[in-house]
């Protein structure tokens, strides 16, 4: 696995959404990268901007409300933000694929499953219908659906939720993409099925070398699957590190609280900790450090000074004034 080769590099991405009540900077100066063959996690609570980040990479922001306002997305030597729609179309479903949270609504309800996979194949590859059908059934086998022929002739609503998600994955893998973006792929599934889908994603990385950007609010998944993690809060990246390092040594108070609130089976505690407070308003975000209203270590200057990403260890960065040498003395 060539982990050092960078596949996708997002630099200072800014994306806005126009809502009825104002302009929301859903993605505010976000930077991260995905290297070849690795699984990167993008973690945060709902509304923090992680889905918008994913949609921005695919240039699928809801028009006319959503736009990329600044920054760049480098992929295979090109800046995706500067490509034309035609050029982008050649990449979608082909080099970069995305799977969404709810497979029932994400699949066309009146189109047979096989047809939906075939469609993905023929839009990017010059193969005839029969060859495409053959490949579609093969794909269904590869995602763990043994009776691919039968399933291919069914409509989405006739199969189970877990199987639908596998179908979505099959559609995403139709043209053997180098990057798979998975937006909350298991949130809507039963716990028992979740594990299977995650294992499938792992297998895809192992067998095909596909890189994965996993977007989730569930730290448990991250611990299991990801090589590196980026934690997002209120549209900004607040900490990132290799997974083990993050779990062993979370520097950002938000990360610490997230970790504490994951119930662990072997912990003697009988009380569940939660992260206090509400999701921040992204139209008028909090001043200074965006996490300050909910931070247990907040000091006066946290309300006015915006922290930058500071290196705390190899490949480990955090956005907190406690690590900023100019202010860290205040917490001694």
């Amino acid at each position, binding site marked *: 696995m060539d982990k050092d080769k960078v596949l996708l590099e997002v630099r200072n991405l800014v994306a806005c959404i126009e809502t009825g009540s104002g302009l929301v900077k859903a993605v505010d100066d976000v930077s991260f990268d995905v290297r070849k063959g690795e699984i990167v996690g993008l973690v945060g609570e709902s509304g923090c901007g992680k889905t918008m980040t994913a949609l921005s990479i*695919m240039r*699928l922001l809801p028009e006319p409300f959503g736009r990329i306002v600044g920054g760049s997305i480098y992929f295979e030597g090109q800046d995706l933000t500067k490509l034309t*729609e035609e050029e982008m*179309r*050649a*990449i*979608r*479903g*082909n080099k970069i*694929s*995305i799977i*969404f949270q*709810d497979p029932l*609504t*994400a*699949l*066309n*309800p*009146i*189109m047979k499953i096989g047809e939906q996979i075939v*469609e*993905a194949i023929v*839009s*990017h590859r010059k193969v005839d219908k029969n060859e495409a059908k053959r490949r579609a059934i093969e794909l269904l086998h590869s995602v763990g659906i043994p009776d691919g022929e039968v399933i291919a002739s069914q*409509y989405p*609503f*006739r199969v189970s939720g877990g199987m639908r998600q596998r179908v*979505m994955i099959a*559609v995403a893998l*139709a043209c053997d993409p180098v990057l798979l973006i998975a937006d909350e792929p298991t949130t809507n599934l039963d716990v028992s099925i979740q594990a299977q889908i995650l294992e499938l994603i792992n297998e895809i990385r192992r067998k095909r070398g596909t890189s994965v950007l996993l977007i989730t609010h569930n730290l448990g998944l991250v611990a299991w699957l990801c090589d590196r993690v980026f934690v997002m809060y209120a549209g900004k990246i607040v900490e990132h590190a290799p997974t083990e390092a993050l779990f062993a040594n979370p520097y950002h108070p938000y990360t610490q609280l997230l970790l504490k609130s994951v119930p662990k089976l072997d912990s003697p505690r009988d009380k569940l900790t939660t992260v206090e407070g509400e999701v921040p308003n992204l139209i008028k975000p909090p001043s200074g450090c965006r996490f300050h209203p909910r931070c247990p270590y907040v000091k006066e200057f946290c309300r006015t000074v915006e922290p930058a990403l500071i290196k705390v260890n190899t490949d480990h960065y955090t956005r907190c004034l406690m690590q900023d040498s100019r202010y860290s003395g205040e917490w001694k």
Partner: protein
Amino acid sequence: MLAYIFKRLATVIPVFLGVSVIVFIIMLNTPGDPVLVRIGLDPNVSPEKIEAARRELGLDQPIYIQYFKFLARLVQGDLGNNIRTGRPVAQDIMEAFPRTLILAVTSILLAIAIGIPAGILSAKKQYSAFDSITSVGSLLAASMPNFWLALVLIMVFSYWLKLTPLSGYGEPAHLILPTIALGTALAGTITRFTRSNMLEVIRQDFIRTAKAKGLKESVVTFKHALKNALIPIVTVIGLQFGTLLSGAFFVEVVFAYPGIGRLAVQAILQKNYTVVQGAILVVSISFVLINLLIDIIYAYIDPRVQYE
């Protein structure tokens, strides 16, 4: 699929019966004595003759027997005779109804040809000037009385511009104005409906997935969005068919177009009640059958329906 068809057919039978009951009840109350119509208004006619006529018309039987006889005749296609001409009503209707159907079909085609593209465009260009104009325009079209529109069209195109014939039947030219008069309201309704459905469908997740697969814009719009949006439109056309048939009555009267509507209205004015009864029956039963057909088409397009 077949099971669904049979299931729907089964629900249609009681409706047919109900329709026949209601028409029968209505016709029982027609003013005037059918006996007198039969034997003429001779004041010196003997009571025996009146009795004989009454027995002949079956009016001495209790009502439910009269109904069953009526139903029996109905099933055999006997709709009685035209009181004025003596011809079987079924014959008059067989002549007139197809003409109305032709008019209905051309109107639906016109309405679809205008309505669906207008609806799709409005949905794609939501909030634009085109959208606002189309919105009000389509509502205006649906609010106009079709008999008035018909008169205005005649005034402008037949009298002033002398482009179209005044009335009658025979050549395709005779269909132009009646089609516009009848189809405009439906065009308005279809535009609004297509627009709202497209808007709803465009926002759905599977459209985002289709785009994420890298499909062309046209494929996403037509193969994915429109097909899904069209489903309820099929139902709307079915529902509006009733309004269309009713509307035909007015339009045919204004254009003196010899369809079943004009036949019925003239019959009403001439107190020719058997014709009226037959017309209402035929129109209603066709409406039920058309709705049945629409339901089956709907189940074919949207496979989810069969499993509900």
